């Protein structure tokens, strides 16, 4: 009984302190934002790992590796974020990445220039996105079903186009292509620079443009957005196209980095990409999320992966950890949501 009372007293005290803090609107906004807490988690994990593994974790090489490994996932997560904000989902990103990678490889193999290869990859990606978007926005099929179909179809195209062979003889412009994805500037991989630039660009579009405002409106209340005069169908089509384009960009960078194109590229990445957005704070029901959320979500997953490897835990356990973090992130949202209501 006595302990009960003390506990209640303590809770009340914490409550009072909380209200005092939450009177500041900016502080309240920060504390309520999931990306903030994910950033804190990333910093804590990095600090702990640096203390546990001072010889291998806080090194230049490891930093280079970690950042490069989440860069292409982060790039795809930005496009996925646009789709998820509208209240949809794109399961086909991994397969689209595989297909566009093969298209790039084939164009290079045929001896064409690097920019034509990149354009062909982007074109193939945009086409996949347009097909997804058209079926979802104009035919009205659920995004889950349409993109699941594309997941199977795009992978199959990749296998057929590549004749199930690895493409690595890139022709005269192969070196430029490999420098693009595999190069580094100031000790940081090109892919990471691209991710940072794209995060800024997406953040700007999400926050400051009409298009950005409208994707949030579609995800928040599609019927209301339509009644208000938002071009809901067009917005959706554009979101899926943008998402597929980010997969194509990621494919171009990864094919350049690895110096080869395989049709299995991107297999299973949809899970990592969607997990990044959700862990970053996107709401799978739509209407919530942001560019930084995609970046920091992808970062957390990779930092955890890397830490597990360094701690000597079998890499087969990674899936279990990523899965647990997805559920944890949604649980966190639910708790925050119920408090807000």
């Amino acid at each position: 009984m006595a302990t009960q009372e003390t506990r209640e007293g303590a809770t009340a005290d914490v409550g009072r302190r909380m209200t005092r803090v939450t009177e500041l609107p900016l502080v309240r906004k920060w504390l309520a934002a999931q990306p903030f807490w994910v950033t804190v988690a990333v910093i804590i994990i990095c600090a702990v790992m640096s203390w546990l593994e001072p010889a291998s974790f806080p090194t230049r090489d490891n930093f280079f590796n970690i950042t490069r490994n989440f860069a292409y996932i982060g790039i795809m997560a930005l496009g996925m974020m646009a789709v998820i904000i509208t209240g949809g989902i794109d399961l086909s990103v991994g397969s689209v990445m595989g297909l566009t990678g093969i298209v790039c490889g084939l164009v290079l193999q045929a001896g064409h220039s690097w920019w034509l290869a990149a354009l062909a990859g982007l074109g193939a990606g945009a086409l996949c996105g347009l097909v997804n978007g058209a079926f979802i926005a104009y035919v009205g099929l659920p995004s889950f079903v349409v993109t699941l179909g594309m997941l199977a179809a795009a992978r199959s195209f990749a296998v057929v186009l590549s004749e199930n062979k690895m493409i690595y003889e890139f022709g005269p412009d192969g070196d430029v292509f490999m420098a693009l994805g595999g190069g580094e500037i100031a000790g940081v991989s090109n892919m990471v620079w691209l991710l940072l630039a794209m995060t800024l660009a997406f953040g700007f579009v999400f926050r400051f443009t009409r298009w950005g405002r409208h994707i949030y409106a579609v995800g928040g209340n599609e019927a209301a957005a339509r009644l208000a005069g938002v071009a809901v169908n067009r917005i959706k089509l554009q979101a899926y196209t943008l998402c597929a384009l980010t997969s194509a960009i990621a494919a171009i960078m990864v094919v350049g980095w690895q110096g080869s194109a395989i049709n299995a590229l991107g297999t299973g990445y949809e899970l990592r990409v969607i997990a990044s957005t959700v862990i970053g704070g996107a709401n799978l029901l739509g209407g919530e999320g942001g560019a930084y959320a995609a970046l920091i979500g992808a970062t957390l997953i990779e930092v955890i992966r890397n830490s597990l490897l360094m701690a000597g835990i079998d890499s087969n356990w990674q899936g279990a950890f990523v899965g647990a973090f997805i559920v944890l992130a949604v649980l966190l949202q639910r708790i925050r949501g119920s408090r807000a209501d």
Partner: protein
Amino acid sequence: MAVLELKTISKHFGAIEALSQVDLELDCGEIVGLMGDNGAGKSTLVKIMAGNFPPSSGQMLLEGRPVHFHKPVDARAAGIEVVYQDLALCNNLTASANVFLAREKTRGFGPFRILDDRAMNERSRELFAELKSETRPAEKVRMMSGGQRQAVAIARTHLARARIVLMDEPTAAISVRQVAEVLDLLRRLREQGMAVVLISHRMPDVFGVADRIVVLRRGHKVADKAIKDSSPEEVTGLITGAIRVA
């Protein structure tokens, strides 16, 4: 002169006659309570005025000129706005973002334009002040009370410079205290010279604010009289059919 005049409007859905020979006039600065049982034709009438579908026969005159609406956009362009029962707001956006949804103010030059949130918040603040509602422009709608949500929905119609506002059951899903707030909002609209149609099941609300009452039963208009000449008992009788015509 009436701002909107409906003349012998009928609407058939196959063999079903949803409305038959209904006349209705709306004046500026007037609240008309539109009452009737479920299936009496209230929503059909509202949907015709809002441009959801055209009448089977009859004529609609806007300030004396005949109008034909094919889409809701047509009606909106003519100054007729509907505030829907479920309010049709985006909970994840701020009040001002909802007010300006699809009509956002932007700044910049040429195709390089960004949202002008400051200007939109400022204008929303003015609109809420006109409505004497304590709604904060930068607050998310999710956090708001039913009355504040109504203010947001109504501010949207204000922004469009609507002359006629059709309110579909605005007091159906909110608490008693908030009902008073919403009825105040309606009075504000009347003061500003709008014609308001209040579709409601709640007798006290209609008798609280309306100037005139129109009762529909089975697609026919059975009453159209000043509220002071009627009584809740009479209207109940008209709705149920205990009284044939008044």
